[in-house]
């Protein structure tokens, strides 16, 4: 079953006295499987925040359908099962973290539980600051409180917009740990982060959104996979000509070569030829891409 199912989603923001609107989403089709950790990446202005607002019912789509947790996001019962952390969560500065959690719990229709709230604050690393006024919190602490708020009531779907924004590297590790715990618990995670390394480490599925359209979507390893291309490093003193004859192309670095091999037999045949020419193999790896490269290449290709 899908946690999020979006078909042909379009959103055009219209302004008064202007004939042409601003097309933020131009027919997005996307499915997020239940229990998955899904990352949405894309350049600025791609429509990521609009997409998140659309799946939460905050903006009304111009066209298309949105189904979240099997129902409409307009339905409060559906939204009750979603934990959301907005990109720039505004927190009341004069309140304490416990008071804020208490109020949000009531608004979520939950029975406020002080002990549970304290445990939650402890989990996000705010136990010591629980009774301090939010106004005195750092940006990272505010993000942690926002995350705690999203986790209230053990939601089935977590929608997080830049959850580690402002959090220090150690804190990111903690947050990542919490998110991985939630995923293990069976929560579906929908993550929008400009920190691609975070997305890469947490998510198993990724969609690339650019110019209001999903350009690529799939499992992370599928997206980053380089196909039949391998990177091979030989010990210094290798005969370049012999290697070229065996199908190896010189890479940028010293002793680094690339070779195309459709399967394991073809790869071993090429390696046998190289060793026969006196080359000594020191490293072999699939010639894949990181997420940044995938994003850059995908967006660049689409432009």
């Amino acid at each position, binding site marked *: 079953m899908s946690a999020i199912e979006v078909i042909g989603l379009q959103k055009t923001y219209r302004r008064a006295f202007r004939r042409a609107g601003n097309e933020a989403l131009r027919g997005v089709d996307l499915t997020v499987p239940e229990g998955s950790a899904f990352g949405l990446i894309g350049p600025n202005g791609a429509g990521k925040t609009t997409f998140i607002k659309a799946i939460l019912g905050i903006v*009304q*789509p111009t066209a298309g*359908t*949105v*189904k979240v947790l099997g129902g*409409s996001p*307009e*339905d409060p019962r559906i939204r009750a099962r979603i934990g959301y952390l907005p990109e720039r969560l505004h927190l009341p500065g004069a309140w304490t973290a416990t008071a804020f959690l208490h109020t949000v719990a009531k608004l979520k229709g939950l029975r406020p539980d002080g002990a549970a709230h304290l445990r939650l604050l402890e989990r996000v690393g705010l136990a010591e600051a629980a009774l301090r006024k939010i106004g005195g919190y750092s940006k990272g602490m505010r993000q942690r409180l926002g995350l705690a708020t999203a986790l209230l009531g053990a939601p089935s779907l977590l929608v997080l917009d830049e959850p580690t924004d402002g959090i220090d590297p150690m804190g990111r590790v903690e947050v990542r740990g919490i998110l991985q715990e939630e995923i293990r618990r069976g929560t579906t995670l929908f993550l929008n982060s400009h920190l691609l390394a975070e997305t890469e480490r947490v998510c198993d599925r990724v969609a690339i959104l650019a110019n209001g359209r999903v350009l690529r979507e799939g499992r992370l390893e599928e997206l980053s996979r380089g196909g039949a291309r391998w990177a091979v490093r030989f010990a210094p003193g290798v005969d370049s000509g012999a290697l070229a004859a065996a199908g190896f192309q010189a890479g940028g670095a010293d002793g680094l070569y690339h070779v195309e091999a459709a399967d394991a037999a073809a790869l071993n045949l090429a390696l046998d030829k190289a060793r026969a020419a006196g080359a000594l193999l020191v490293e072999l790896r699939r010639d894949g891409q990181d997420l940044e490269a995938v994003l850059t290449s995908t967006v660049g290709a689409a432009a």
Partner: protein
Amino acid sequence: MKRRRGGIWLALAVVLLAVGAWLMFTGQGDEPPPQAPKVDFPRRMRQEEWKRAERRRTQVLALAPDAGPTEATPRRPRDPVLAALPRGKGKSAVVIEANALRHSPIGELLVDCLMRDGGKRMDAFRQFSGVDPLQDLDRLVITDDGLILSGNFGNARFKELFKERVSSDYGPGARVYEPGSIVVTLPDGGTGRGQGDETVATWNDQLLVVGDTPGAVKDVLDRVEGRGSDEPPVISEGSTYGEMYGVVSVEQLARMLGRDQPELADQLREVADSVELHLDARSDVAMVAEIRGSDEAKVTDLGKSLGAALSVARLKAQADGNKDLAQLLDFAQVQPDGSEFKLELAVPIDAIRERLAFCRDAGQPPREAGMQP
């Protein structure tokens, strides 16, 4: 996908705004609000009253034969009615401006009451006496010793009216009619003879003086002619404002209060020296009583007691549901000022009109018992 249905709210808004407009329109009503009653208390001489007083200075006294060089400057003309007033402490005199009162709203109501029989009695009196009370009478003064009427009595048939009395001249223009045997109309329509007990005097067809004794009447005439005491009259010219004004002796006022407020009456006797009254009837009937005493602290205490008594009366009227009386006492107040204080009371003309409404329809019996104080 479930779409938001905002149209329901818009339709509801239109309905609510329309209902709200109707409710407000009906609730407020479009008639102009009734004017709140505003009573004008007679507190000082007004310009027209100064002019009136000036017009009334018609009597020029001749210089006394033995007048010295200090009397060389001619005396100012004076008002013969004020001159006729009693003098000295403890004397009472109340002047009713009959002509002004007759042309006031309350006067018109009273005339309506007087003319309930179609004016037959008034006509009979006019023909009998030659005096039209509604036209010829200017002022009526009530004193301790009798009455003084001022006006135009040129057409009065005094000789026929007082033919049974013993008349004699008393100085230039003055004539005194002392009690003699008079013809009395009996209940069966016949006539009988009796003895009159009041002395009447006329002065220059302007004054008619009625007194208990010939001496009292002659005293009045003496004062008018400048032969009396040198003390000023009990009412000075500067106090002739309102449609009714005068000085009431403390004893008389205390006697009036005595029945309902014996303690207050005693306090009044003890503290006050004189009580000056002024009544304005030009629109609503408003009365100001100026009470003076020699002991400032006691006068202030008396003022407070009177204020409290009025307040209690008002609260009682409110508690009893007597709205009219409560409304009358709404205007009641006491204004202390050192060794004197002013007590102000008012009766809105509408309340009087309501009470005297039966006079307009002579065929209808009175609706209720008379108005309470």
